[in-house]
């Protein structure tokens, strides 16, 4: 509590809370609501029952009608607060509904049936965070398959990206060879060529190589990122050449120098690139959407988009699946946010 009050009463001047301070914190609080609110609303909604999800106006928390098991009835019965003819309100369980009339019983006295018009009863509800949507969604959505595809693509692509980019960056930063500048300039100039510009020809290449409808077809093309090479090269330039020279004198091969001197020293830059690669690959949509047409190969993003564009939108399932899709990246963010933010701030890329 003291931290909160400290925070609230922090001032720009010595003692008084300056008006600009108040506006600052007002802006930040508002920003927090706008940034987190929608995500929170999605998460809360994902615990609602399928009936509750389509209810209008929506309620803040997930409610569920209370059920009671009564002797003599196989199924649990829904509980209602029924207003009787004499004006008294009693908590009763509904046995069946016939037209506009509802037949209810008292859980304490299941023999006697009380008849009440349906507009004279209110369901008894309680807040329940139900996992039913998640269970149903995982079955009907083939979640495990899509998750596996996404994880496979993300991990493989990240390993491949780190390997080929770091090797190229090593060559471009530590060797003087003919064509070095040409290679570097061509790579940098394609920094601005997004995949959306070369969709048709890159699809032709993939088809000719035979990678259409394969996961490798979405792993490999993006692996030689010019951004990655550039980032790693700039970092490796700061590694002193003397280290390499002395290693050579000690008889180390070039491969050993790359593996045991360059890679460990470039670890901070590799970490930044790794995080970026995970983000790129996990969230990638357009390219997987074009390469993959068989649903068992879909990644989570493609699967989710296809799922939600089906004619009958089943919101309760989509909500749960969306939460599951964003969970991994949220965890990555929670643990690595410091590295991510400083990484982006220093390199200016995403």
């Amino acid at each position, binding site marked *: 509590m003291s931290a909160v009050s*400290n925070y609230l009463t922090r001032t720009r001047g010595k003692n008084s809370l300056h008006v600009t301070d108040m506006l*600052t914190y007002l802006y930040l609080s508002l920003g927090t609501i706008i940034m987190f609110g929608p995500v929170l609303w999605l998460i809360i909604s994902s615990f609602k029952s399928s009936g509750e999800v389509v209810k209008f106006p929506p309620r803040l928390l997930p409610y569920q009608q209370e059920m009671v098991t009564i002797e003599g009835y196989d199924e649990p019965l829904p509980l209602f607060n029924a207003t009787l003819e004499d004006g008294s309100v009693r908590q009763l369980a509904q046995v069946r509904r016939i037209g506009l009339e509802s037949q209810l019983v008292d859980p304490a006295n299941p023999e006697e049936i009380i008849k009440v018009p349906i507009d004279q009863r209110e369901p008894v509800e309680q807040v329940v965070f139900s996992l039913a949507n998640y269970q149903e969604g995982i079955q009907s959505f083939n979640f495990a398959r899509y998750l596996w595809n996404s994880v496979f693509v993300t991990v493989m692509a990240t390993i491949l990206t780190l390997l*080929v980019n770091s090797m190229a960056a090593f060559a471009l930063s530590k060797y*003087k060879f003919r064509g070095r500048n040409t290679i570097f300039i061509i790579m940098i100039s394609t920094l601005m060529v997004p995949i959306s510009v070369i969709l048709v*020809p890159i699809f032709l290449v993939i088809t000719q190589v035979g990678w259409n409808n394969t996961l490798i077809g979405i792993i490999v093309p993006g692996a030689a990122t010019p951004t990655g090479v550039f980032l790693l090269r700039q970092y490796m330039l700061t590694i002193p050449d003397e280290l390499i020279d002395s290693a050579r004198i000690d008889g180390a091969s070039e491969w050993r120098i790359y593996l045991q001197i360059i890679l460990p020293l470039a670890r901070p830059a590799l970490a930044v690139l790794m995080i970026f690669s995970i983000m790129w690959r996990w969230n990638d949509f357009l390219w997987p959407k*074009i390469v993959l047409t068989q649903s068992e190969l879909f990644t989570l993003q493609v699967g989710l988009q296809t799922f*939600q564009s089906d004619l009958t939108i089943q919101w309760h399932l*989509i909500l749960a699946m969306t939460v599951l899709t964003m969970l991994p990246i949220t965890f990555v963010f929670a643990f690595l946010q410091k590295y991510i933010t400083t990484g982006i701030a220093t390199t200016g890329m995403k």
Partner: protein
Amino acid sequence: MTRAASRIFSPIYDIIVAILDVIFGSLQRLIGITNMAYVFVLPNLLIFGIFILFPVILNFFYAFTGSTEFLLADRPYVGTQNFDQLFDCGSFLDPNSCREDLFWRAVFNTAGYVVFQVSLMVIISLFTALILNRKIKARGFFRSVFFYPVLLSPIVVALIWKWILQENGLFNGVLDGLGYDKVMFLTNVGWARFWVIIISVWAYMGFYTLILLAGLQAIPTTLYEAAQIDGATGWDAFRKITLPLLRPTMLVVIILSLIRAVQIFDIIFAFTRGGPGTATLTLVQYIYDIGFASPARRFGTASAASILMAGVLVVATLMQLYINREEN
């Protein structure tokens, strides 16, 4: 890594390294130290050449050949016909008079989106960065707050907002509670365009805020102290110190956000699918639609459109850089 995992993986790793040692070692003896550079650069260069550089060149072949055939050998040379078709317009201001009316709708939608989205993005990001640069508590926390949506996938972002804005969603619930009628945010042309801009700003602003914040923090505080001694107000300091010194960072932000805005696709695709009608159809979706999603795949037109888009991107970038040089 846990000890158990490393016990499993380290022998495998050692074996791989040993094998590579033999390969690379003999290679090095064969070609010499300096030429090893080519070996290191080769894998990246191969992937880059085959999947980026080669397609860039191929794109022109597609743009100047016709028919719906996919293989280049089957496609007849048609000269500039694909481009002519795209520019075949009665009046360039009226998409209905154009042969490729969808292309021009996409162009106008994208242009409108770019103008509003980029300006809104720059203003909000700059303002947020300035706020975060003040002496505030928990700066790290608030920085992450604004940054968090950047990590969410475009599909997830679109679904989060679709859920809020749909007919029976949260916003309509609030409107209903206040006694207003429901608003069809997703199927009304004006609202759909409006929300597409807002959502993408929501999703990406944290990224640009972060870059601007880094730029702000690089400005030496001694400058502000000196200005204060000279009697400058906060506004003076902002205009005379912050803005000029932030110019390079601002340029990066404007170029990056511009380039990304021109190529916007997935958020809108999952949010409105270009609808209602063609109200939020963008250039990349147009290219995707005619090249990959329609029964008769018109690769030539798609390539021609993508080359035009790339041209716009290059020109925009060069112009920004030129203006900046001019003013310095």
